[in-house]
């Protein structure tokens, strides 16, 4: 672990931001608190995706599958078999991890480079949709309704707005810290080597399959856990929201807009775009459904054409200029 990891982790900016965010439930109205909570969900999801998509350069479209397993399976286990949701979260996370490893291995058999990974993960995501929609155990097309959140921590209930907010903040922080940690360990270097030139990485003896699997498993487990917490927040396991590939596309776009492969890039993208989308939906959703996704799309196209590395490098350059002057 490089020294920079501890430096960033202990930096007053990062710790200050965490403490200030943690105090938000005391000042915000429930509407704005909902927007911030939702933003944190996507910060966590985009950061977990970043390990595979940003660092290793493998555009995974399968993350809806891991989020969906975390959400739908843990709910089904609770409602149909009475299994405690903490245990359900663990079971879902293990299944997601194994599936992630399997997908990475299947991809390794392909010989089409980056494209094959996008494709095989997309095919798996589509299979996930079909299975959930057609299987009543997982709620089928109508979804599952979780019991009311009474604040019983042992039953995976966090007491509504405030409690869930802190859980989400903790999860988002964990996902960002895992990103930071990976970037500052050999795994991070190997992943970036694989992203930049897979053949060269192989030539210098990087075990590509092993590191791809490692990245995919870490990423899948995180996404699955966030999925379980997200469904507890929503209290309704909606298959059209939680297992649809659209959720992955959103995550990919947030990460791209913020800055791929950086620890704070995906978080930046989610923190900018989720509130924008929510406010637009609140103001115009009734009259023009689809408008906020339309605007997401336009923003993404604009960002990619203007600054393909995302917004974070721009902010950093501005920050450096500001410090040099001050």
């Amino acid at each position, binding site marked *: 672990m490089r020294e920079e990891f501890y430096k960033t982790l202990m930096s007053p900016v990062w710790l200050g931001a965490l403490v200030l965010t943690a105090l938000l439930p005391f000042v915000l109205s429930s509407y704005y608190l909902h927007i911030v909570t939702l933003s944190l969900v996507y910060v966590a999801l985009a950061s977990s995706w970043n390990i595979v998509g940003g660092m290793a350069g493998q555009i995974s479209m399968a993350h809806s599958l891991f989020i969906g397993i975390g959400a739908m399976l843990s709910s089904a286990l609770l409602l149909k078999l009475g299994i405690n949701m903490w245990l359900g979260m663990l079971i879902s996370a293990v299944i997601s991890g194994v599936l992630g490893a399997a997908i990475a291995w299947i991809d390794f*058999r392909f010989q089409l*480079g980056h*494209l094959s990974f996008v494709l095989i993960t997309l095919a798996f995501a589509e299979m996930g949709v079909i299975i959930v929609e*057609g299987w009543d155990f997982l709620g089928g097309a109508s979804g599952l309704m979780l019991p009311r959140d009474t604040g019983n921590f042992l039953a995976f209930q966090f007491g509504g707005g405030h409690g869930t907010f802190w859980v989400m903040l903790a999860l988002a922080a964990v996902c960002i810290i895992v990103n930071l940690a990976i970037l500052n360990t050999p795994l991070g270097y190997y992943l970036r080597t694989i992203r930049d030139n897979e053949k060269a990485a192989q030539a210098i003896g990087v075990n590509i399959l092993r590191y791809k699997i490692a990245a995919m498993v870490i990423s899948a487990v995180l996404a699955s856990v966030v999925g379980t917490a997200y469904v507890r927040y929503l209290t309704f396991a909606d298959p059209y929201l939680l297992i649809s590939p659209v959720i992955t*596309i959103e995550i990919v*776009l947030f990460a791209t807009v913020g800055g791929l492969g950086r620890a704070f890039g995906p978080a930046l993208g989610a923190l900018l775009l989720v509130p924008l989308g929510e406010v637009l939906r609140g103001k115009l959703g009734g009259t023009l459904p*689809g408008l906020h996704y339309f605007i997401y799309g336009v923003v*993404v*196209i604009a960002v990619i*054409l203007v600054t393909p590395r995302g917004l974070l490098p721009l902010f950093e350059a501005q920050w450096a200029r500001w410090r040099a002057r001050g």
Partner: protein
Amino acid sequence: MTELWQALAQGVLIGSTYGLLALGMGLVYGVSGVVNFSHGDFISLGMFMCLALYSALSLDPYASAVITIPVMTAIGAVVYRFLIRPMVGHQFLMIVQLTLGLSLVLQNGILMVFGGQPARTPSMVESKLIILGEIVLRVPHLIAFAVSFGLAIGLYVMLRSTDFGRSIRAVHQNAHAAALMGIDVGRVQVLTFALGIGILALAAALLLPGTPIQPSQGLRYTVITLLVVVLGGMTNFVGIMLGGLVIGISEAFGTIYLSGPLGHLMPYIIFVAIMLFRPQGLTWSSQR
């Protein structure tokens, strides 16, 4: 036994239209290395343009194609020139993300204009059937099959024996060398992309009669198209038509013989199985 022939016939007819959807993508991939993840949303766009023409002028989808093909071709040229060309040469993944963004724009643009309710566009031949012995065939499927194969053969001939076709093949084989031979590579790429999108307008009109449509369907068409292109070995026309048939037939068999989700999973299961054992796709030669 009747069931078997029925499934086979239906699979072949539907599969040929999947092949048609995939031809454009394979062509574009060969010439500019671009994989368009908004492919399915362009199909949606074509279908909804036909719907709009039907509600405004009560045009039959087949007649609408005369209008939608040139319009979509022009849209394709604009999209390539102003969105995709600036990204060619950058990382492959950037184009994936750009076209994913484009997919959101198209899908939700359609949603904003037409609303989210499933819609249908009637056609003269919609409910016409042809009965061959014990097999029942729908006329729209037959028309789609005939046009798809006709167009595939037409494209093949065009690539073999016209100057434009030869320049496409030259750019496909080696863009640098083609440029040195005096071929305007940029122009060939724009025209190919436009042609690829134009074909989708035709495919949309062929698929439309009797099919309910909704704005969110695009991604599923993209996935099917990608499966077919990859099965076909990316750029091989014969392979792509064959890939379309494999996906179409496995879909028909899945829905007829297996109930519930397992049936719908058939194309994906077959795809993963084939790719595990033949990662280079269905075509036999290693020539690319």
